């Protein structure tokens, strides 16, 4: 689904399979799997500490997606002029 034009600019929808990792933290919406008392952890029912546990899971997923979908910056020829207002201002850099 990735599309780009001759100048290397990205347009349209860009989809990367790594993005699917963002679905993982939604496990926390499935209440039946954790709505229980045991096993307890330092006196805290499973219901509570399980949800705390999903916080680092969510953090990990967003970090992986960030790292894996990072684009390498292209510093070559100037691209298209984004809008008419900037025509008379000269180009950046």
């Amino acid at each position: 689904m990735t599309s780009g034009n001759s100048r290397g600019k990205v347009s349209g929808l860009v989809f990367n399979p790594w993005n699917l990792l963002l679905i993982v933290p939604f496990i926390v919406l499935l209440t039946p799997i954790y709505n229980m008392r045991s096993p307890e952890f330092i006196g805290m029912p499973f219901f509570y500490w399980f949800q705390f546990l999903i916080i680092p899971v969510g953090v990990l997923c967003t970090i992986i997606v960030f790292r894996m979908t990072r684009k390498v910056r292209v510093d070559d020829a100037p691209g298209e002029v984004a809008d008419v207002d900037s025509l008379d201002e000269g180009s950046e850099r």
Partner: protein
Amino acid sequence: MQWVELIEFVLLFAFVTVIGFVAARWQSGKTLEHLDEWGLGGRKFGSWVTWFLVGGDLYTAYTFVAVPALLFGAGATGFFALPYTIIAYPLVFLPVLRMWSVSRARGYVTPADFVRGRYGSSLLALLVAITGIVATMPYIALQLVGLEAVLRSMGFNGGGFFGHLPLLIAFIILALYTYQSGLRAPALIAFVKDILIYLVILVAIIYLPIKLGGWSEIFGAAEDKFDATPAPADGILLNSNNQLQYATLAFGSALALFLYPHSVTGVLASRGRDVLKRNMSALPAYSLLLGLLALLGFVAIAAGTKPITNNATGRPDGNTIIPELFNGQFPSWFAGIAFAAIGIGALVPAAIMSIAAANLWTRNVYKEYVRRDASHAQEAKQAKIASLVVKFGAVVFIVFIDPQYAIDLQLIGGVIILQTLPAVAIALYTRWLHRWALVAGWAVGLLWGMVMLYGIPNPATGRAHFGGSALALGKLNIFGWEPFAGSTVQIYVGFVALAGNLLVAIIVSLVIRRMNVSNGVDETTGEDYHVDEHTENLRPIAGEEPTRPAPVTSS
């Protein structure tokens, strides 16, 4: 009157006031007389500033007093705030980047600006703007509820107008430095607020369980309390009726979070896409804080804390639970720091919210309908004045009207802001939904949501209407058709209203597309949704030279 607490509170409050006024000169551009500068801090906040700003914006004083109060009163159902903030960031990770890019490319300041550009419809933009303002106003008023809970715990528990005087003074000061410094003021103050809050919560969450005999004692005390009440819905676990409500409320709140104009303001003020991506991973640190804080509701049960009676309304005020817990369990010098943390925690979001509402007013009502040829300086002036009006509107609300109405309105606000999801969030990806279909869906979702909220009683407080956001599925009635008649399983009203909204939008789109009705002109291009801080030939910020702005912090 509690003098130690009061003196600390006043000193810290004076400290952030100085910061608020000085902020105007912090990394300032050529002029503050432009919405990019006053309303978005120059669009150049780096990772750290964005983290404090958005964190200070989303985790408000009201959250800090109301979430533990919910756990104190009802148990596990109040804990929905944790899953809500866990899924919010993965959920918005991708759309927020598109929103930032298109706004940067086209110079949009508000979500309604985007809708206007995407659909060429000033009507749809106006509806989104008004929905945003209406949803934000009671939210600002609730920050006052949080601030007042602290003031009443410190001894300012008078009745009548004088009972509200300290609140009024605090808000006048806030209004003045927001007027002068714009978004830079809350961005800087957020540093102080969050450091204080982290300090207080970490100490409380380590010290109090040790003092009270450990977590098993605390959960045991909570369970004993809920077993003794006649209400069947409370308890330290969910029951079969409120699990769906728990999940849909968390999901619906997460969907709504970044539709609120003040969240969009925080996002658009950042420098680039990488700043936002980093923040989506770093902001859950606040979720951890919120979860721990929520548990203080149970700690308060174990400590035998009693809410104090609000002399202005004559009722016990559940929101004073956390201030009272700190009062009873900590030495006064530490309680003072805690109170200041909550109090300053009210100022940051109130400032950002009033700026966001002022931006909406200026860009989508004033410039669109009152003064089409307004210059950038006139826009900035208008927004500054609007921010004053918005804040005093909130004060009037609290002083002259029962704060309970602010809570009701905030409940409604969450449901109605969700109804802008198709026009704002879905439009980031596709224009398939027709602009008139979006108007129809918005109207249906809004009305239906209000009707459902009106019909929900709260037996615990004896209220017949607006008793909460949990709808029993058995009460669901679609023109006389009751699909789940007799069911006592509960669901979040906003979720149901949004489903109705989307259904109407899709059906009307299908019909209207056969009738050749104009879907407006889309001024955005595919590339706009991918621009980043280093993209060539970006629109200059605040009319400055098109050189790249210096980053605020290194990251």
